[in-house]
Structures are given as C-alpha cells and as structure tokens.
C-alpha cells in the first residue's frame, strides 16, 4: 500500500511538472474547467427563475446535487478517467503497454493512475469554494450520520464508475481505438448532473437499476438531505460488487489477449 501511495505521489509530482512546463496551456485549461463548472450552476439558476420545484427538488437541493456531481467528476478526471479512456488506447496502439506488463506493479493500477492530472485538481479548488458557499447559504441542519452515509454512497458511485470504465477500456485491447467509448462514458456520467427523479417509467428504471447513474449524485444527495432508501442501498452494494468482479474478469481476459504492437 505504501509503495502504491509513493508511486501515486511520483505520478502526481511528475505530471504537474510536465503541465507547468507549458504554462499558457495550463492556465487556459484551468480557466476552461472553471467556466464549465459555473455554467452548470448558472443553468440550474436560470431553470429555477421559472419554477420553484423541479421533480420535487428545490434550488438549494439541486445546488447540492450539482456540487456532488462536480466533486465526483473532478475526482475521476484527476485520476482514472482519461488514463483509461484515452491514454490506455494510446499506449496499446504504440505498444508502450509492453513495459507496464513487465513491472512488478499491478497493471490496472498503473494504467488507471499513470497520469494524475493535478491541473484538474487545481480547477477543483472551485468545487471547494462551491461547498463553502453551500454550507454558508443553503445548508440547513443535517446529521453526522447522513454525512457519513453520503460519503459511503459517493464511494460506491466511484467504484461503479471505475468498474464500468475498466470494462469499456478493456475493449481497447481488441479495438485499439476506444475514443468512442470514452465519449460514451462521458455522456453517461453527464446524465448524472440532473436529478434522476425527472426521469419517469422505463428511464427511471434504467437509471436506477440497469445503469445506475443515480448513484453518481442523486442518491448520495438525497441521503445527505435525509431521504434514505435502504433496500436500494442493498441493491447498490450487490450491484457494485458484481460489476467489480465482472470488470476484474474482463480486464484479466483482455490482458491475456494482449497482442502488443510490432517493433
């Protein structure tokens, strides 16, 4: 564990050095990310100028949902998302994945965290500001247990996203070019920006049970606000566990079929 933490630290340090070597690009990227976050908040603000409630959600609650989503998005963008969606197919295409398989280090760990994007972490400081704003302007009394439950559910959401992306990324061992899948994954998680309660019927079932993107922001936010759904949490634990096992199997199968690139 200590070894892996040390390696994450080296990855972070090295990539920050790399990015700061190209300063204009660094500052522009930070500005772009900050703008994208503010646009999401503004979008909800505009919607709530016209209606006091959206599928039973008040503006202050949707604000919590938005910053929950942004927290999850920042976490995965900083860590595994681009590594698995974009950088892994690139390594496979060039045959540089060879080296990852020869090192005494878990290749999934190496592939997922090889580039820790601290630039995203810099822009994520805005998320901290939004959390501060939420607590000082909107948060009513909440229990410590609700907060713990919120964090646990966030954790499950992250495991769900990681497992899903590992399955998607494994396909790159055969298709090599997997940018389409990376974009598909982004589209899926972006649906999590909205309260899934706005979806009815088949879509509601889809986003709760089949492709539970509700776990990204809606379910944790509701727990934070005091609305719990224990049977669903049990389902979520079982679902995440099975998905994690499947992703592990798929990844190992893909590693076995790695054909490298010609030298």
């Amino acid at each position, binding site marked *: 564990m200590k*070894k892996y933490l040390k390696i994450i630290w080296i990855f972070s340090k090295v990539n920050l050095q790399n990015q700061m070597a190209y300063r204009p690009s660094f500052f522009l990227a930070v500005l772009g990310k900050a703008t994208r976050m503010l646009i999401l908040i503004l979008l909800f603000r505009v919607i709530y100028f016209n209606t006091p409630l959206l599928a039973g959600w008040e503006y202050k609650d949707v604000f919590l949902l938005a910053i929950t989503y942004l927290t999850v998005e920042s976490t995965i963008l900083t860590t595994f998302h681009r590594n698995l969606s974009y950088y892994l197919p690139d390594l496979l295409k060039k045959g540089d994945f060879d080296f990852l398989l020869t090192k005494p280090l878990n290749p999934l760990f190496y592939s997922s965290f090889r580039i820790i994007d601290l630039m995203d972490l810099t822009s994520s400081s805005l998320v901290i500001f939004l959390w501060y704003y939420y607590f000082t302007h909107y948060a009513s009394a909440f229990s410590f247990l609700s907060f713990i439950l919120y964090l646990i559910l966030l954790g499950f959401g992250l495991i769900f996203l990681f497992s899903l992306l590992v399955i998607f990324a494994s396909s790159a061992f055969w298709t090599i070019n997997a940018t389409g899948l990376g974009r598909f994954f982004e589209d899926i998680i972006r649906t999590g920006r909205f309260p899934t309660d706005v979806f009815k019927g088949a879509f509601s079932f889809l986003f709760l049970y089949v492709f539970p993107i509700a776990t990204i922001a809606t379910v944790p936010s509701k727990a934070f606000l005091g609305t719990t759904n224990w049977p669903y949490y049990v389902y979520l634990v079982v679902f995440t566990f099975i998905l994690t096992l499947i992703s592990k199997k798929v990844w190992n199968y893909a590693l076995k*079929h790695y054909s490298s690139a010609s030298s």
Partner: protein
Amino acid sequence: MIAISVKNLSKNFEYYKKVPGLFGAFKSLFQREKLITEAVKSISFSVEEGELVGFLGPNGAGKTTTLKMLSGILYPSEGDAKVLDYTPWQRQKEYQKQFAIVMGQKNQLWWDLPAMESFSLNKEIYEVPNDQFKKTIDYFSNLLDISDILNVQVRKLSLGQRMKCELVAALLHNPKVLFLDEPTIGLDVVSQQKIREFIKKYNKERKTTILLTSHYMEDVVQLCQRVIIINKGGIIYDGDIQRLIDQYATHKIVTITFKNDIAVDQLTLLGEIVEFDKRRVVLKIPDQNVKENAVRILTAFPVDDILIDEIKVEEIIRHIFQTNK
C-alpha cells in the same frame, strides 16, 4: 544451471484482412476475413546462467515475439518456457523483480523530464533501498559516463545518451536476466561500440544472463560466443559462432589489383568473379585452392597488390537466410 528453458514455444497472431477503399472499410464492418500469422513455430532452446547469447534473424523472423513471451508481455499459443523457474506469462511479481527488458525502438523514460525522475519511479516500483539506489546510480554514472546528463530532459539527449539512460533504468534493480532487443539500433558507430563495451563488462562483472537480438553483426560477433539464428519463426542454427563460421566459410575472398588492364576471361578459371574492373578483381576461391591459385596469379599476371580475406560473418548469415527462404 539453466536460466532460460524454452520447449516447443509457438505464437500465432490473428488479424483481419483490410480491404482497401471506402467500400472495403464499410464492408469490413459486417464481414471480415480472419488471417493467422505463425510468428514463432515450435522453438526450443536453453540458456545457461551468466551466458550472453545472440539471437539473430531478419525482420519478422520472430526474435522480438520470443523475447516478449519470455518477458511475460505475450501469452504463447503453444509450448512452455521457464525463466529462472518462473513461467513468464503468469506475470508473478517475484519474477518481474528479477528480469529486465530493453527495447531499442521503444522509450520507457519520461520524455519531458530528466532521466533521474524515471529512475526514481523505478526505484519505488522495484522497491530498491535508498543506499543501493545511490550506489547503483554512481556505478552506472562512472561506467557509462552519464553523470552530467542525469538531470537533463530526456528529449534533449542524443540517441546514444538516451540508450545509456534506458539501460540504467532497466538495470537499477540488478536483474538476473536481461533481454536486449536491438539496443544499438540507430546509433552511430562510436555509440554502438560504447554500448557493446558496457554490455560485455556488465555481463562479465554481474554474471547476468543476457539474450541479445540485433541487426548488427558486429554486436553479436563482439559480444556472443553462442548464436541462435531464427528465420520465419523457426530456429535454423543454435551453437558456437566460430563453428558457424567454420561450417559456412568454405571460401576465401581474394582481391587483386593489377598494374595493367586485364581481360575478364583470363580470370574465370581461377575462381568465382565477385567484382571486376579491368585493373581490379574480387574472386571467391575455395579454401583448398587458395594457395595454388594465388601462386598462379602472382606468376601469370602483372600484380600490384593481392589481399586474401575470410568471408565476413554478415555474408555467412545472409547466405544462411537466403538458403532458408
């Protein structure tokens, strides 16, 4: 003690036939023809601990594929291999800590950062203790003369300097087995020689088992006593390089410079004419006739100079590849 043991190892690659043109690309979305290439065909060999073996073959012969199977990058289609008693493609951490692979055509150092950063990463990956890491860096810095480039960005280094750093990155954990895939490719003659000297010295001092592939015969002739020649996926020679030379070098190359112009038909009886230019001829003469023919040439022609050479190892290898096509 045997360090590498390979038994009937084969590797097939499956791929799909690409039909050219837009229509072909569209058609291949629905219907594709699967093709199979036999990259390595049931090869067997073993390498003793501390041995430095040359693995020779033309492009596409199966050299790199074999090295990739032995380093656990690829699963074989059939057969078995053991390196230090481990099955490489099981990718056990204990095995990975005891071998290294260097590929001359690939770069494992961080491009935009000094090589020292990549060394630090490998130190953590291989769990090399601090004092051993410092000692090893000092050892390689002196041996390869790289102390002044350790903190220079990799992309600013010359190819030769980069290869030296690649070798250091691979050897930091003091591996027992080293796979070198074309380590001198693209280097100038001076850099090639430095890398060769380093490999020779390292093998001698550390008793590391080394399997070396190269296109450059000089690498193999200078470094290896034993060669394995592979062509079209199969081994066609495995043994002492001198025995190979003795077996195939049945002729000598005789180069004669004349004082006056000579007609080509006067020379045809003396040997096979390789090159001819009125005052200069290169003949290929069977070993047993060299002495007698040299005397005949010196007495019958106005000779200015005569040179008798062994056939070059490159020629022998080229001949072997051509006869095994």
